[in-house]
Every structure is written in structure tokens, then in C-alpha cells.
């Protein structure tokens, strides 16, 4: 009898092959449907041919716009990335600070955890007007929307993880004379760092989503702005590469965060612990 399926491991090449398979399947699906639709209506905009998309990409990424003289894709990317970076950084900081505080200190937990839970459940899009009076219409409100969107998740996740630290370790630290602050710097922060990074990885999708939504509300540049703008005439030849580009960047961030995790927390992969 062969090995159980849970004990069989693909090699490097195998992993690559299996990993690529679903992507190829989706691509094949797209090409089929696109070809079908284009056969019916050569001007179909919903699923443009790859060649059309390629042309558009060349125009967006390498040709300066006639009106502004800027290369649209890069302008949009720079604007969006700046907003995203701010949003992620602020959210991560909040997640770490409030998450640790509320996970570690029972009084803060009592005070914060129901509030954070409720805030995390409020649909932010419905309260945009209130956001606008408080934070204006510029970059700030976009960053704030990202923060409102993902910080509550980060806070709750981190707080749950802090609560799950084995009590023996916290006790041990105290018997070694650690103050609360030292427990945070030497035990909680280093063990939470990889959890924070994992949580950030899981928030990348929502963060981009909130960014794009924010850019749809009031903006003059940004990837989300462009997508909503061209949606007005169903320019999927622009939307699809933009979405692919966003996904690629998000994937690279995800990959980078994972690599960062391995670097900063070598103990996770060393040994069997």
C-alpha cells in the first residue's frame, strides 16, 4: 500500500507545476469565453482579446498621456501605493499597540474589546459623510478609510493571539523579574511579530479593497480612480490589466511579508517546536 496522501510531498518542480495549474485553467477559460464573445461581437468590451489588452498596457504603462504628459500607470501606482503604505503602517501600529494592550491588560480588555468588536462590525461605507466632516476629502480620509477597514481586524486578531500566549511563559517572565513593559518588549512583541505579519498578509486584500473604494469616492489619481473612471465605458481592457497589476503587487507584498517573517523570526522554522 502506498503512502497516505497527507505524507506524500511534491518536489520543487512538482509544486511549481501544481501551483501553476489553476492559473492556466483560469487563463484557458478566459481565452475560450473571450474568443466566443468576440466571434459574436468583434467590439465586445467585456472580455477583450489578449492582444487588445497588451496594446492597452503598452499605452498605459509606456506611453505618456496626451493630455497630461504623464504615464498613467505609474502615476496611479505611485499615488495608490503611498496611500496604501500609510494605511497599512498606521493599521499595523494600531493593531500592535491596541491588540497587545487589550490582550495583555485585563482592564484595557474590558474597556476596549467590546468597542473594537463593534467598530469592526460597522460597515464604514455607510458612514462616509461622517468621515468626510472629520477628515476632509484629501489623502487623509483615504488613509483613514483603510485604517477603519483593517485595523479592527488586526487589533482583534492580535488580542486573541496575545491571550493565547501560554500562561506559563508570562508567569516565567514575571518570576525572572520582568515588568509589564519588559514582558511586552521581550516576550510579547517578538512572539507577536510573526502573527502580526501573518495578519497583515491576510489584510492585504481588504486593504486594497478599501483603498480602491476610497479612490472611487473622490480622487484625481490612483489605481482605484482609474478603474472607476473607465468603468463608465466598460473598458475592461484597462480594468483587467489594472486588476492584474494590483493583484501582482499585492502578491509581491504577501511574498515579501512571508520572507520578512522567515528572516525576523528564524525560530519559527528551526527545529520542531
Amino acid at each position, binding site marked *: 500500500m502506498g503512502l497516505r496522501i497527507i505524507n506524500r510531498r511534491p518536489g520543487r518542480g512538482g509544486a511549481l507545476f501544481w501551483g501553476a495549474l489553476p492559473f492556466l485553467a483560469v487563463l484557458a477559460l478566459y481565452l475560450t469565453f473571450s474568443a466566443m464573445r468576440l466571434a459574436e461581437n468583434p467590439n465586445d468590451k467585456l472580455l477583450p482579446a489578449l492582444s487588445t489588452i497588451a496594446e492597452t498596457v503598452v499605452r498605459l504603462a509606456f506611453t505618456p498621456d496626451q493630455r497630461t504628459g504623464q504615464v498613467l500607470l505609474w502615476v496611479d501606482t505611485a499615488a495608490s501605493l503611498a496611500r496604501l503604505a500609510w494605511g497599512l503602517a498606521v493599521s499595523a501600529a494600531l493593531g500592535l499597540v491596541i491588540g497587545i494592550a487589550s490582550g495583555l491588560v485585563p482592564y484595557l480588555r474590558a474597556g476596549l474589546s467590546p468597542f473594537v468588536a463593534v467598530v469592526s462590525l460597522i460597515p464604514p461605507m455607510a458612514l462616509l459623510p461622517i468621515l468626510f466632516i472629520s477628515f476632509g476629502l484629501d489623502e487623509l480620509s483615504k488613509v483613514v478609510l483603510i485604517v477603519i477597514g483593517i485595523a479592527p481586524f488586526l487589533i482583534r486578531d492580535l488580542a486573541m493571539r496575545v491571550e493565547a500566549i*501560554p*500562561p*506559563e*511563559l508570562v*508567569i*516565567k*517572565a*514575571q*518570576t*525572572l*523579574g*520582568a*515588568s509589564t*513593559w*519588559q514582558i511586552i*518588549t*521581550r*516576550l510579547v512583541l*517578538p*512572539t507577536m511579530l510573526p502573527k502580526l505579519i501573518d495578519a497583515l498578509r491576510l489584510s492585504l486584500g481588504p486593504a486594497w479593497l478599501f483603498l480602491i473604494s476610497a479612490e472611487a469616492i473622490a480622487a484625481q489619481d490612483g489605481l482605484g480612480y482609474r478603474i472607476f473612471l473607465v468603468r463608465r465605458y466598460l473598458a475592461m481592457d484597462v480594468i483587467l490589466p489594472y486588476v492584474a497589476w494590483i493583484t501582482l503587487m499585492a502578491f509581491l507584498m504577501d511574498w515579501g511579508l512571508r520572507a520578512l517573517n522567515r528572516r525576523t*523570526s*528564524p*525560530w519559527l522554522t*528551526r*527545529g*520542531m*517546536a
Partner: protein
Amino acid sequence: MSTVRVRNLWKQYGDQVVLEHINLDIPSGEFCALVGPSGCGKTTFLRLLLAMEQPTRGTITIDGKPLPGEPRPDRGVVFQRYSVFPHLTVEENIVLGLEFARAPLTGRLYGAKKRRALEEVAETIERVGLSPSRTKYPGELSGGMQQRLSIAQALVRKPRILLMDEPFGALDPGTKAQMYVLVRELWRAERMTVFMVTHDLKEGFSLATRVLAFDKVRHDPQAPEAYGATVKFNIPLDDKAERAEIVSKLPALAATENEEGATRGRPWARLFDFAGTTRRKRRESHERTSV
């Protein structure tokens, strides 16, 4: 100074009475070995001393003052399942206690201070036999190595009271012997009060100056959870030189010894029946063989 006094201590988990009616007077500097059947509540007793758990009833005082309601550096601990910090190397785990003491703000030493601290603990690391594994993470250590790491970690802070839960259980005889020497030395030098749970009676009798045997004295076959364990035998090993020294320094305590009727007439000799060893061994073990 760290005289431990326990008065009418009870501990229940839900309906189950784990410990009942425990009274103890432990003079400062005493080395107590806690023995007793598996599951009788030895670990629970240590957890109470550590203030990890609150007693259901009764009080614990140290030097007359109520036990602080939380773990403090005056009470060091080696847990039964030797938990060490998984994100720190052997060296970092051991030097941590010093860092907490010397870097109040960050809990981390740098540069020359760090080097000095590392030098200070180098001997301890050497003596627990972890020098070759100095830069390994706990996940890369064997069970016995983790246990030694945990011991070294607790010793570095030189606590006034040291609580150890089967600290040598996962060690081979040779390594164990080295650890005995290490712990005894520190105990003598720092005049620590030690509580050590052990299942090795010989170890208990040879290391300690007092043996506390936990067991149930009341049984209800219908409701095995109705009664808890207590200190069935409280055996000061008066023939030990160290003990004579401890007691001589504390004449006040000599009186309380008389409370412990159990120590008279050696009814605790039955302890060795558990061991499943032949009776002929009993006396031998009680002689202080070199450890």
C-alpha cells in the same frame, strides 16, 4: 529571609477537592522535597506558592506577610513541562533574567554590558552542559536539554524561593549528578528556600533537608473527588548538617517541629513501599550517599 507559613490551605477545581487542610512552617533556607502519588496535587501546591492560582481557602505567608498575589522574582520556578521561551536561543533564554534586572526600560542589554552578562552566565551554561548548543533555539533541543535550560534560566536570577517541579525527571544519571551539585551549591551559597517535586525518593532524601509527602488521608470510594490530598508526612531530616545549621539560626521555629506528630516514630518509613523496591533498600537510601 523567606520563611514560608501555610495555614489551613484548601484548593478545589469545581467540585474536586485537590488539596485540603494543609499547614506548614518552613524555615528560611530549608530544602523541601515534595513527594506523593501522581495527580495528588503537588504541582497545584507549587502553583499556589507561585500565586498562579488562588487558594479556595486558607493563607500562605512569607516572612509573615501575605503572599503577593502574582509571581515575583523572589520566587523562581522550573515547570514540570519545562517551558522556555521558544523565540530565544539557549544563551538568550538564560541571560534574560539578568537583562530584566539591568535594563529596566528595554529589558535588553547591548554592547559591553551584554558581553559582561553573557560572561556571567557562561559558567552556568557550561555547567548545565549546553555550551555546544549555546545558539540553538529550544525547538532544536532534546527534552533533557530543554529541562536543563529551564533550570539554568531559573537559577540565574538567584530567587529567594525556588520552586522546581520534577526538574531532573528527563535527565540521565550522569547529567543529573552534575545538576545536583549545581543546585546544592547555589542553595547553600544563596540560602534559598527550595521546594522540589520529585518522584525519586532517594533523590528527595539525599538532596533535601525536609521531605513533604502528599497523599489523601480520607477516601470515599463512592466519590473519589470528595476529599483532597494533604501533607501526610512532614519529615525534617534532622541528621543533615545543613538542616542543623538552618534550625540553629532560627530557634523560634524549633518549637513548631513538635506540632508535627507524624515525624515521631518514623511511620513515614512506609513511604518506601510505594517504590516497589525491596525493604532492604530503605535504610541504605536514607544514608546520605554522595550525590
